[in-house]
């Protein structure tokens, strides 16, 4: 059993981080250059960490599977980034941001971590502005804010609908500066395929160059994983096609605990699937629900055009079921309601998986120009993808996976249970509990990279003798490399009938049906039969053409899908074991009559951290109790 010591500092909540920073060990400037740190991933968390550590004087090697660090999927975040600046004079504070985030996470995150996140949020905005991030501004030249879900203040900073892009390019520019200065050794097209653990500590990685196929060993004094979330286990999601779980999954197989893997966030307003060929779901901003009315036909199998369905045969189901919140019901509620409608056969569109988001009333009330001014760019995106005009006919929308709150378990220092292995950003589980609030993902990625890891990694490295890192040809490295080569050879040698995508689609369907918006004991148990069967089929009949020594996208996908198959099973196991509903984890057995999540704080007020036991063996479920010292776990209620 792994020991899970969260290392939360003692003392009052608001003093913990300050106190911790003054108490943890430091590495003196002359020694920093003697330590080598590997950073895997170059999204918000990875780029900010790599550049900050290099700026401090550490030798940094950064590995990215993309052809450039600027491609990381942080770039696609639209809405904004939260910070407790209180520039609007509307009563915001660090404590309010802390409280909103903790409550939004349905009381399944650590108090101390969330408070630290809220504290450093203000520094993030300062840092980004100094880097030249062109945030939206008022005419007076000061920063503009907007409001977002789950908060009663305007604390979200934004750069049009491309906030993630601008923040990532800011972090990328900081990283580029350090690469240009020779302080970061950047390796693009480089996918991490294994973690090397020497003497119980993370001391290196195995990398495959995706262009040349070369497999190389890299040793370091510490390893940082900032490799993002695993939502592509569902195949269809708002994630980039390349987003994967491989880095964290292989670390899991080397002993790092995987925490709360079942916590998945599903966004209610995405453009629905149009056919089997679909590769990607596109998010439509939640703001549309301010003026759009969601409905479905009352009758199942009604294929009439929406305009032909009279008012009396329409079911404005959110307004009916949740009269006080109506179309602005919380994300998870709105998502689950849409799913139920479609399960009843009342879904619309050619696939039957969609509901209407209708602007006819808004256009009648406000006029088309006003609607165009508010939502024009979103209507354009919708038109681009569907060739339909939302001014003339209602939009079709459906929920889609877009974030995973679970990830590798880390302590307050963001170090996993393997000493020397740090995990940042979406790849860890730390700050969002069971549900993430809008505009908080960007905040966490940058908090971890700019303002947490530069302090906490020193505490670990100070305990490592400079120059003590193992050579990259130590037996552990050779073994790990051999394992990686073995897997590659197996994929290429299988020469089965089905392309990798076949298995990914099948897994995605199982996960979506069984471990998606609503989960049941029976469904999850079925999934735990179906996924191993699918894995066997995959191992026996996957077709990976080409060779290992060139760019081979089928081979890349095969490795990732193999890991998704394993992870999917663990997610179902975690969801099955967590006999409660909380945030993004909804067990139909555990709900209040109004459909709200029914938590069980007594039995499940803890983090579940799964520990790998070997191929084919059931993993061990460790728990870390969530001790709420300052806040009371209460019913999450937005009414």
């Amino acid at each position, binding site marked *: 059993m792994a020991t899970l010591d969260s290392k939360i500092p003692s003392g009052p909540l608001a003093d913990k981080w300050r106190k911790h920073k003054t108490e943890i060990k430091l590495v003196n400037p002359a020694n920093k250059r003697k330590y080598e740190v590997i950073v895997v991933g170059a999204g918000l968390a990875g780029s900010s960490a790599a550049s900050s550590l290099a700026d401090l004087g550490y030798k940094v090697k950064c590995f990215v599977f993309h*052809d450039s660090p*600027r491609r990381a999927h942080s*770039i696609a975040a639209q809405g904004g980034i939260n910070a407790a600046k209180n520039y609007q004079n509307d009563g915001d504070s660090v404590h309010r941001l802390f409280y909103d985030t903790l409550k939004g996470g349905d009381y399944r995150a650590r108090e101390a971590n969330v408070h630290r996140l809220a504290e450093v949020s203000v520094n993030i905005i300062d840092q980004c502005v100094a880097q030249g991030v062109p945030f939206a501004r008022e005419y007076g030249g000061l920063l503009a804010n907007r409001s977002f879900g789950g908060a009663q203040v305007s604390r979200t900073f934004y750069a049009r609908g491309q906030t993630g*892009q601008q923040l990532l390019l800011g972090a990328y520019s900081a990283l*580029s500066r350090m690469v240009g200065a020779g302080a970061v050794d950047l390796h693009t097209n480089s996918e991490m395929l294994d973690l090397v653990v020497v003497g119980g500590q993370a001391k290196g990685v195995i990398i495959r160059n995706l262009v040349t196929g070369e497999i190389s060993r890299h040793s370091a004094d510490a390893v940082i994983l900032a490799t993002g979330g695993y939502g592509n286990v569902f195949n269809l999601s708002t994630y980039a096609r390349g987003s994967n779980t491989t880095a964290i999954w292989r670390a899991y197989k080397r002993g790092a605990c995987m925490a709360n893997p079942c916590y998945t966030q599903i966004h209610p307003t995405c453009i629905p699937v*149009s056919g089997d060929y679909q590769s990607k779901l596109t998010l439509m901003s939640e703001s549309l629900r301010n003026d759009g009315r969601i409905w479905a036909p009352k009758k199942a199998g009604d294929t009439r055009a929406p305009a032909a369905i009279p008012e009396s045969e329409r079911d404005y189901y959110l307004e009916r079921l949740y009269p006080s919140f109506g179309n602005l019901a919380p994300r998870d509620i709105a998502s689950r309601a849409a799913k139920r409608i479609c399960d009843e056969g009342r879904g619309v569109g050619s696939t039957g998986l969609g509901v209407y988001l209708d602007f006819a009333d808004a256009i009648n009330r406000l006029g088309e120009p006003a609607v165009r001014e508010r939502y024009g760019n979103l209507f354009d995106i919708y038109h681009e993808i569907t060739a339909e005009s939302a001014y003339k006919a209602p939009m079709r929308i459906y929920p889609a996976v877009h974030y995973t709150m679970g990830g590798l378990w880390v302590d307050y220092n963001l170090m996993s249970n393997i000493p020397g292995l740090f995990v940042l950003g979406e790849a860890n589980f730390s700050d969002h509990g069971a549900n993430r609030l809008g505009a908080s993902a960007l905040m966490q990625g940058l908090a971890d990279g700019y303002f947490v890891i530069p302090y906490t990694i020193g505490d670990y490295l100070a305990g490592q003798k400079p120059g003590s890192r193992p050579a990259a040809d130590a037996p552990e490295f050779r073994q790990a490399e051999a394992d990686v080569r073995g897997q590659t050879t197996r994929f290429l040698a299988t020469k089965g009938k089905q*392309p990798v995508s076949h298995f990914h689609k099948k897994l995605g369907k199982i996960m979506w049906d069984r471990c998606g918006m609503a989960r049941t004991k029976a469904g999850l148990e079925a999934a735990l039969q179906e996924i191993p069967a699918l894995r066997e089929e995959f191992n026996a009949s996957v077709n990976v053409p080409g060779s290992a020594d060139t760019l081979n*996208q089928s081979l890349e996908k095969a490795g990732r899908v193999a890991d998704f198959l394993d992870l999917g099973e663990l997610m179902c196991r975690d969801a099955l074991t967590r006999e409660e509903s909380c945030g993004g984890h909804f067990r139909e057995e555990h709900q209040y009559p109004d459909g709200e999540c029914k938590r069980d704080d007594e039995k499940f007020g803890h983090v579940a951290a799964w520990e790998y036991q070997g191929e084919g063996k059931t993993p061990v479920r460790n728990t870390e109790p969530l001790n709420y010292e300052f806040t009371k776990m209460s019913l999450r209620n937005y009414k």
Partner: protein
Amino acid sequence: MVAASTLKTFSVTLRVWRQAGPAAAGGFVDYPAKDISPDMSFLEMLDVVNDELTAKGIEPIAFAHDCREGICGTCSCTINGKPHGPGKGVATCQTYMRSFSDGDTIVVEPFRARAFPVVKDLVTDRAAFDKIQQSGGFITARAGSAPDANALPIPKGDADLAMDAAQCIGCGACVAACKNASAMLFVSAKVGHLGLLPQGQAERDRRVLAMVNTMDTLGFGSCTNQYECSAACPKLISHDFIARMNRDYLTASLRSAFKPAPANTGGGAA
């Protein structure tokens, strides 16, 4: 509503550039793409063709892609002679099959330029863009040293214009479209973005001189003011930024010629 377009499928012929590796000779190969839905994205159509090729034992077509929502800048096909295909202001991943008709032959090539060598099939190496950024595309701001974000008001117009430039997704369509394979639009977008902001002034001259120098060294061509770049840009970034960079470059050259050099340049590492 079932859109009429979702019901009718069609077939096209793909004439695709196949090239086994950077040093290998390449050539066009025709593949049929049958039962194509107009609602498919161009890349989804390639996915389907690739699965069919895999089933036939033919190595699938390598193509670059990731976010599939037009923001990461990875996708990079030249379709019928235009980078990213027929649409205006869209990336390859936002090109839908409804832009084509039954029986069309669609010519698909990589973005071509000497500075973007072909890696395989439709995939090119655009690391040159990163090198340009590394030579000066940043504001030096150490984490933890920033003043309060509102300490420096920035006129909304300047911030908005900077954002227009900052939207660049680094895809390289500008280079691919330019008859000179010039990277001026890309470089000028970054120079313009940072140069428009007060934070960017300290390094303004250094930045433009260094980035242009790197751009030249990496073997990009020069600008002949035809503006094919901005017309092909998926973010429709204006060539106004090129004019602005030209002026910045001239001003920086003049300033560096006439400003006395300090006797000692200690401090300010990197």
